[in-house]
């Protein structure tokens, strides 16, 4: 059985039409998973905290 990686990156000739569609669907699902988390309140909340902590670190490193 072909893995997602094999399906997505095989040459067109090596795939059936169905496999090609599956490959693109898996790519779209991957994008959706990452994007959904990126747009979540938790992501934004933690991002603000990291920014604050990293900014503090920059100041420390300049002293």
């Amino acid at each position, binding site marked *: 059985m072909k893995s997602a990686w094999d399906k997505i990156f095989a040459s067109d000739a090596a795939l059936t039409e169905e496999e090609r569609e599956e490959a693109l669907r898996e790519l779209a699902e991957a994008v959706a998973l990452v994007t959904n988390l990126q747009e979540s309140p938790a992501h934004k909340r933690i991002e603000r905290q990291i*920014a604050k902590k990293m900014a503090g670190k920059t100041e420390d490193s300049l002293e």
Partner: protein
Amino acid sequence: MSHLFQDTPVSLLSCLQENRGGFPNEKAWSAFFNLYHGPIRAVALSVFRRYNWKHVPDAILDDVILDVVTSFFKADFSYDPSRGKFRHYLRQLTTWRVKDTLARLPKGLSLPFEEVAEAELSASSLQPDGELEAREVEVYRATLLATLLEDVRSRVSPQTFLMFEMVKIFGCSPEEVAARFKVKRNVVDNASHRVLKKLRELALQPEYRKEYEA
């Protein structure tokens, strides 16, 4: 889809490896966090579950993820590709941060879990792929695909990528996209073809293949 790290000239993994020991700019940590938040969260929840803690409060989970990202970028950033997969390194780092968090909990607090023996956790924290929970692997692989796609985005024109994205990712018809961009249908087809070709080229890079394969 938002632009995760559209201007990054090389893949994120290579970029981070080259940056080893250097101080990260905002773009670097933001790109890393945008992509790797999912895998870190999945691993953290999995490690907490090993301690029989199933419903971790947001504040505690946030702290763990924050600690993983910031410790990842410490000056002593120690990932060495020759010693194993990045996925395993990230898992180990997350496991340590979960343990740190548990150790910081106030003494005498009635914990909602039973502590697992230290030896048992240590032994299971860096297992081969087959031992990782299915969710962790699924999220990590999705992250790799998204990373690859963002890598390609930085290597083609914005219009070419957008045409590919609209047709192949969001399912718009090529005719619709051609009309929107006021170009002929074959321009849209060529754009999709170019991006797919670039994806395949990049996917052959050992760093991606190694991370994806079991």
